[in-house]
């Protein structure tokens, strides 16, 4: 039997603050064991948390990026459980009054995924297993790194919707400077809650929670695996167990994870050491004003104002720096389409080939725009424009000078052209004859030969015109 999957997400994102959420240790990835630790984040007796304003600000921005309401009143709670990566034996989180609520993001196909809440909490430390002695070694560098948790409603019905949502979240948070969203480093971690039910049913099944998903691809595979696994259980007359499962990338399966605490009673209560936070309307407005244009907003601008195809717009906006580059180029020369074509064509190709990033290229957005302009106004051919990009990519330089030095400037007078065309037609008399007899396909071939004969400065428009005349 085929079933309808029902999926909700919990996404943890590490915030790009300078310091940790409740102490002044530096917020940074990695480092030698226990070197970014203080009495506060290691939970020493007598210490108290000190909420970081920057974490509140970034969490509010995450709310703006996902159409949430940013609440004027939010407060902190303790989630109590024992685990060696949690030195206080409670995690400070927001349970009753989260900072953001009621958001949404539209995924491909126009479907709206509701976001229940975004709350601030602290990350735990890391345990390294020492197999030699059969013990674990606790490193608290990551303790107190600020996190937000984005909790969606169970609105997803396919892996594709989930993947699109996660991709969008990652893009938006990166744009907003909230999170670097590196799934492979764990700075963005997605937990998938998934159940299945017969198509047409309204009653959700028992869900499993899948952890350890470190790429958008893994998310898709894990969901497919889980649908399959749960379907087999139901088809066999069994019952799905509510549990947490871990995705294994190499085996491409999920296995149950041992629970953190058998009792599973977190005994949440209001954190007495942190006063609730009041954000005034002015505070909220000031944070909103800091929001950059988000990828979906840019994409809309590109299609509506610049007339770009939707696919191109979404490709251009996938990475903020790439899109920033395009924006700057477009601002210097309004050759929107041509710049887009160069960026999605030659530039992307060269970046991929060399494994480099748009921020590292040797030419400026204005230089790329100039190249586009040269092609658009007929100074050079489109093919030559690509070659200019390639030369700038390698060595930099002014596009017009490159065009001149390499002889890319197209001929604008047709005086010598007749002679060359006659020669080409003579050399390809057979083809010319066949074309005249109705084989229209051969025009391209003859055209190619003519361009070759004209060299780098060939002007395809003029050649075409001359050929048409001669072949009539």
């Amino acid at each position, binding site marked *: 039997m085929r079933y309808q999957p029902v999926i909700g997400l919990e996404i943890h994102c590490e915030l790009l603050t300078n310091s940790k959420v409740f102490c002044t240790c530096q917020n940074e990835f990695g480092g030698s064991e226990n070197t970014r630790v203080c009495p506060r984040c290691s939970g020493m*007796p*007598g210490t108290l948390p000190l909420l970081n304003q920057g974490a509140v600000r970034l969490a509010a921005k995450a709310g703006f990026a996902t159409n949430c309401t940013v609440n004027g009143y939010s407060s902190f709670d303790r989630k109590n459980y024992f685990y*060696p990566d949690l*030195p206080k034996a409670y995690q400070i989180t927001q349970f009753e009054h989260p900072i953001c609520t009621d958001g949404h993001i539209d995924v491909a196909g126009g479907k709206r995924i509701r976001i229940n809440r975004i709350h601030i909490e602290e990350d735990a430390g890391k345990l390294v297993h020492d197999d030699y002695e059969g013990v674990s070694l606790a490193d608290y560098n990551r303790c107190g790194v600020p996190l937000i948790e984005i909790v969606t409603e169970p609105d997803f019905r396919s892996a594709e919707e989930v993947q699109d949502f996660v991709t969008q979240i990652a893009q938006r948070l990166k744009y907003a400077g909230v999170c670097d969203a590196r799934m492979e480093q764990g700075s963005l971690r997605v937990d998938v809650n998934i159940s299945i039910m017969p198509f047409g049913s309204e009653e959700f099944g028992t869900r499993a929670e899948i952890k350890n998903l470190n790429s958008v691809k893994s998310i898709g595979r894990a969901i497919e695996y889980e649908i399959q696994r749960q379907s087999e259980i139901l088809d066999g007359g069994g019952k799905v167990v509510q549990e947490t499962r871990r995705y294994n990338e190499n085996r491409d399966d999920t296995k149950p994870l041992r629970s953190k605490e058998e009792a599973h009673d977190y005994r949440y209560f209001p954190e007495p*050491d942190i006063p609730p936070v009041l954000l005034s309307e002015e505070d909220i407005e000031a944070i909103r004003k800091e929001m950059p244009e988000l990828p979906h907003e840019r994409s809309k601008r590109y299609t509506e104002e610049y007339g770009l195809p939707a696919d191109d717009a979404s490709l251009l906006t996938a990475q903020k720096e790439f899109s920033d580059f395009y924006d700057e180029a477009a601002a210097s020369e309004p050759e929107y389409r041509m710049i887009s074509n160069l960026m999605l064509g030659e530039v992307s190709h060269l970046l991929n080939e060399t494994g480099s990033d748009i921020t590292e290229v040797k030419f400026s957005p204005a230089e790329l725009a100039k190249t586009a302009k040269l092609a658009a106004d007929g100074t050079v051919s489109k093919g030559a424009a690509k070659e200019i990009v390639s030369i700038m990519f390698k060595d930099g330089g002014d596009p017009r000078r490159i065009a001149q030095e390499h002889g890319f400037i197209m001929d604008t007078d047709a005086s010598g052209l007749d002679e060359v065309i006659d020669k080409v037609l003579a050399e390809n008399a057979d083809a010319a004859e066949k074309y005249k007899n109705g084989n229209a396909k051969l025009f391209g071939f003859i055209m190619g030969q003519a361009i070759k004969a004209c060299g780098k400065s060939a002007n395809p428009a003029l050649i075409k015109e001359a050929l048409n005349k001669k072949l009539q």
Partner: protein
Amino acid sequence: MDLCELRKKLDGGDIGAVELTKEYLDRIKRFDGEINSYITVCEAEAIAQAEAAQQVIDKGGSKPMTGIPLSVKDNICTNGVRTTCASRMLEDHIPIYDASAVSRLKNENFVMLGKTNMDEFAMGGSSQTSYFGGPKNPYNTGYVTGGSSGGAAASVAAGLCAAALGSDTGGSVRQPSAFCGVTGLKPTYGTVSRWGLIAFASSLDQIGVCALSAADAGYVLNSICGRDCNDATTSPIPSGGYTSAVGSDISGIRIGVPKEFLDGSTDEVKAAVLEAAEYYRSLGCTVKECSLPSLEYAVSAYYLISSAEAASNLSRFDGIKYGHRSGLGEDYNELIKSSRSEGFGREVKRRIMLGNYALCSGYYDAYYNNARRIRTQIRKEYADIFSECDVILTPTAPSPAYRIGVQENDPVKMYQADICTVTVNIAGLPAISTTCGYSAEGMPIGMSLIGRAFDEKTIIAVCDRFERDHERRECVL
């Protein structure tokens, strides 16, 4: 000699800081074997601090606390000096930082004589739950000191320090001060930083002062109070000047006496408190009966809130990062259970169990949340009283100090004895306890003056006036 006078003598060269410290250290050696008010005596450090203080004094740069020898309760972190909370769990724990109250005193070059005995993790009213054995009442060593700051109060009463830092979560500075015949000041919540005070119940804990007089208590408070960026619950309201009203005319002050507090007290206590009320009336104060109707809920609400917070606060003690680590236990879960079970005493275990009961699913709303509702209600009832009164007069405890060994194994009776003090913490108010009489057995009887939030100045002045007209009996060691 009060601290103001001592300051003058130190600054005037009549008394040397080192001699003064040595005198106290000498008394500690002579008498504390019996009293057991100190867990750790810092002889060498104290002398070094006194020498440093003397240099400051000699240069004319002394501050109010320079060279004044204090004791510090052993739940207040002191960098490099072991801080045990009177628990096996922290028997060898040496903090790597100072509590803010201590660093402020260090900035004034005070002298720390040592760390005082207490109930384990400040949970108790007798100090008998100390892992190091309970302290004894200097008035009669067969009697308890009260608690949890029993060592602090006893160290002051026995003349083993000039004043003491204690902590008060439900009466832990005021009640032992009453039992030991000294003055105990619990400031408004948010007046003294809790940074470095090993948390029992975060929303109720406040560092306070045990001293020989109200003026002395205010004098010390002036040096430890104020907003601290390390504790988000400290108040931004300007602090200090706590002794500024001492000596001023208190006639016209309106004193409320809530009838519910007297109902459960012994006749001796009731008589002593009413006599104090009469004394104030004779000075021209208005004394009137008032009411705190929700007092009947206070003890239960207090124990639910404080135990819930304690259960969470004490979860960090697992023997792995610090504290007692058991030799038993193959895996993480077994190890932390053995460490905690060996490290904590019985009363601490009871409170943790009770706290988890209050917080666990199924009981949370009926117990913990109702306790929070009662807290709101009690705050409101205090606000109502303060719309008509300036100060509230109550007994500090329903009875004077009792004999060691009498009540300890009856938790319910122990808890109920906190009735006179817990509402002050629930409402976050300041209160001061002083001696208002002596029982037939010769044990001190305490009365408390409760003030409006951040109005320590008034209760200190009103308390000071009483102390000037009523002589404190010295205890004979």
